[in-house]
């Protein structure tokens, strides 16, 4: 750069600086606009599952405790009969169960009525190895759940490895969940 050009730039700097600041801020806001505010980064990734113990659904023998997650890679799925998006992913969970890819544990979250969960599973099918009843969000808060459905990948040592917010679709499964599960099962 010649000295003259450099001096010209220096003279224009006071006018260019606000423009540069505007462009940077606009860039940040533009990215922010495209983000889903419900996708909150979880501080629980790579942390062990907090201890919890859920009662069995009505008419069932066993509930679901944090101890059940030790020993194999598993999915923990938060659902509720009131949750519309859970219906979208439900056939997919059934398919995972049928193919025996990974055991799924269910947290039946905030049912107003104790019959509602068992009835829903009887109607749509039960993809879960074990289901616990969580009317007061004990396990949900232990997992830092903000809405349903949410699904966690927990490794054989009981450490949370991934959090999926929103329904599991074929795309999410193929591109994100299944590769992580396979890697953990191999390791």
């Amino acid at each position, binding site marked *: 750069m010649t000295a003259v050009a450099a001096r010209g730039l220096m003279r224009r700097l*006071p006018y260019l600086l606000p423009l540069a600041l505007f462009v940077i801020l606009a860039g940040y806001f533009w990215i922010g606009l495209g983000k889903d505010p419900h996708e909150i980064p979880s*501080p629980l990734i790579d942390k062990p599952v907090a201890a919890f113990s859920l009662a069995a659904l009505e008419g069932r023998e066993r509930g679901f405790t944090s101890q059940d997650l030790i020993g194999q890679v598993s999915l923990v799925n938060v659902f509720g009969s009131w949750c519309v998006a859970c219906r979208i992913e439900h056939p997919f969970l059934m398919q995972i169960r049928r193919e025996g890819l990974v055991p799924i544990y269910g947290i039946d979250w*905030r049912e107003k009525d104790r019959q509602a969960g068992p009835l829903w599973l009887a109607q749509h099918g039960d993809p879960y190895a074990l289901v616990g009843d969580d009317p007061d*969000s004990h396990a949900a808060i232990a997992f*830092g*759940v*903000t809405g349903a459905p949410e699904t966690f990948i927990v490794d054989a040592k009981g450490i949370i490895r991934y959090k999926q917010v929103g329904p599991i679709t074929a795309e999410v499964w193929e591109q994100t969940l299944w590769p992580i599960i396979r890697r953990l099962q191999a390791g």
Partner: protein
Amino acid sequence: MANHSPLAGRLITALAVLWLSVASPAYAIQPNEVLTDPALEARARDIGRELRCLVCQNQSIDDSDADLARDLRVLVRQRLTAGDNDRQVIDYVVSRYGDFVLLRPPVKPETWALWFGPALIGGGGLLAMALYFRRRSRASATEETSLSDADERRIARLLEDGRG
């Protein structure tokens, strides 16, 4: 009733202001959640105001009617009753939901831009303005003294002529 006296009008305004000032903000806290120990309940309120409802996001858990907010209020009270101090209760919730759950973000390296950015940008602007004006006033000051000898002589001559 059409012509109120000015005094009556002022009285009504005063009463309205008084009424609004004694009205308390509406909390979503249900009577059955409230602890019997008023000291513990007061601490629970202080904590509840600091925690974000993760469903509605722009309300505290004390303000929110969401089910999850209710469960978090109950959790805060359970932990207080179990003997946790305020810090421990807040840390417990943060360990599960992250800093996002705090309505007032903590001051740490990741949030320095947020806390100090506005002051930095404002201060930078003030500094730039001060420099600009100082340079301008100095420039005009040097201009006055930098007349050439020829100019000085011309001014002197003009002044002489004017007087004469």
